[in-house]
């Protein structure tokens, strides 16, 4: 009796329903908490481009939210560098823009949020501009945030994250040691062309004198290429905004 097809099918259906209810129930209950954790994580990543990982690690969740609110102003621009405040009737905020979803749209239709890091409570005193970047690694998506100093040329810091790069190889882009290699590099060459920066093949060489080259990651060249493409693509997308800031560095600030 127990082996009859009817029994097996009934058993499977009941099991599926029970497990399905259990999982969707948990997901419902934990959903808001997870959203909060994700939002906090995004703020940590954004701040990670301008302050050190240890500093962030020592802050509690409320402190990070407070620090973020008092130090970060945002603006959303399109490919031409024009500010976008609403789309299809709904207001647009930098936090609400999903870079990953925008990545799938044609470049002209994408929204590009900019996070402006300024002195505490004073949005006029800009210290750096933080640009989100997004691309493909070896296995899955990679993304990050690049902070440019107010000269719109020197990289003040980067954070990278990934969905599924190989631990110990491509996943090393999340290590602060790797991210430190980008600090102080420049994205424009002497002729004023945007060349971005690129990780080189191989690891352990000294690129101190070369402003556009970054020491690579051994065994993770494809991830490094992904990082390079991501940087040059997105800095290209932001070029109009960057140029507008460059020509008016003394005027500063878009609110």
């Amino acid at each position, binding site marked *: 009796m127990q082996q009859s097809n009817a029994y097996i099918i009934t*058993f499977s259906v009941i*099991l599926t329903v029970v497990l399905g209810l259990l999982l969707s129930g948990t997901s419902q209950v934990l959903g808001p908490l*997870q959203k909060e954790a994700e939002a906090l994580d995004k703020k940590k990543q954004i701040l990670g481009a301008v302050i050190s990982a240890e500093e962030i690690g020592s802050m509690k969740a409320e402190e990070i939210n407070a620090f973020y609110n008092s130090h970060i102003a945002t603006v959303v621009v399109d490919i031409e560098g024009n500010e976008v405040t609403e789309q299809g009737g709904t207001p647009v905020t930098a936090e609400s823009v999903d870079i990953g979803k925008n990545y799938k749209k044609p470049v002209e239709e994408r929204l590009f949020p900019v996070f402006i890091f300024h002195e505490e409570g004073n949005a006029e005193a800009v210290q750096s501009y933080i640009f989100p970047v997004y691309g493909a690694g070896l296995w899955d998506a990679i993304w990050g945030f690049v902070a440019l100093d107010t000269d719109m040329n020197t990289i003040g810091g980067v954070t990278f994250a990934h969905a599924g790069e190989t631990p110990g190889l491509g996943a090393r882009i999340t290590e602060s040691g790797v991210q430190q290699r980008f600090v102080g590099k420049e994205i424009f060459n002497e002729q004023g062309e945007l060349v971005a920066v690129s990780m080189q093949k191989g690891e352990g060489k000294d690129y101190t004198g070369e402003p556009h080259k970054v020491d690579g990651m051994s065994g993770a060249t494809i991830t490094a290429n992904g990082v390079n493409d991501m940087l040059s693509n997105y800095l290209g997308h932001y070029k109009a905004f960057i140029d507008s800031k460059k020509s008016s560095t003394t005027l500063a600030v878009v609110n």
Partner: protein
Amino acid sequence: MSTETVEKAIEKKPAEALLSKRRKRLISDPLVDDNPITIQVLGICSALAVTTQMKPTLVMAISVIFVMVMSNLVISLMRNTIPSRVRIIVQLAVVASLVTLVNEVLKAFAFDMYKELSVFVGLIITNCIVMGRLEAFALGNKPYDSVLDGFGSALGYSWIILTVAFFRELWGSGSVFGVPVFDYVSSIFGPDFKLATNGLMVSPVGAFVILGLIIWVQRTKTGYVEH
């Protein structure tokens, strides 16, 4: 009528002690003599992957203990109703659901751990130790015994990966649970003295080396020989 039943009543065996000798063996056997990693050589994948640092390893160990105990319990409770032709997929469904639960909880309460571990937590589903115990033990034994068996095997797995992680973090990063031990030790001997860390330990190769050493030491002590 009533007299008959009294005569026929089988003398009930005294209930087995909550932690009888046999039951203790269920827990203690997988720790050394029948360790899932070092003797059965199961679950190597995650043992290599998560053990660069103590903290994620501990989270992984706790997750595995939870999944193994719960899945053994659930499967054992259902053991008489599970149709044998679909038993593997039933086990998988139960294990996968539990693992998803763990993942969701981590995502809500320990997002940093979730980011670091979610790939490996997902892989608990295919961890041979879990399926192996379900198939070999929980399907044929009572719930309480199965829980003990699952707990024992998970502990056997946990102490090995924690030991591997201890040495890998100590030698590879010079710290234990993020505490920079090497820096403290170096400072005792003055400013010129510095303990070097070994990059090999941070890569998966380091785990192979440590694991090999543990197996060597263990087999020398227990005299275990593979047949």
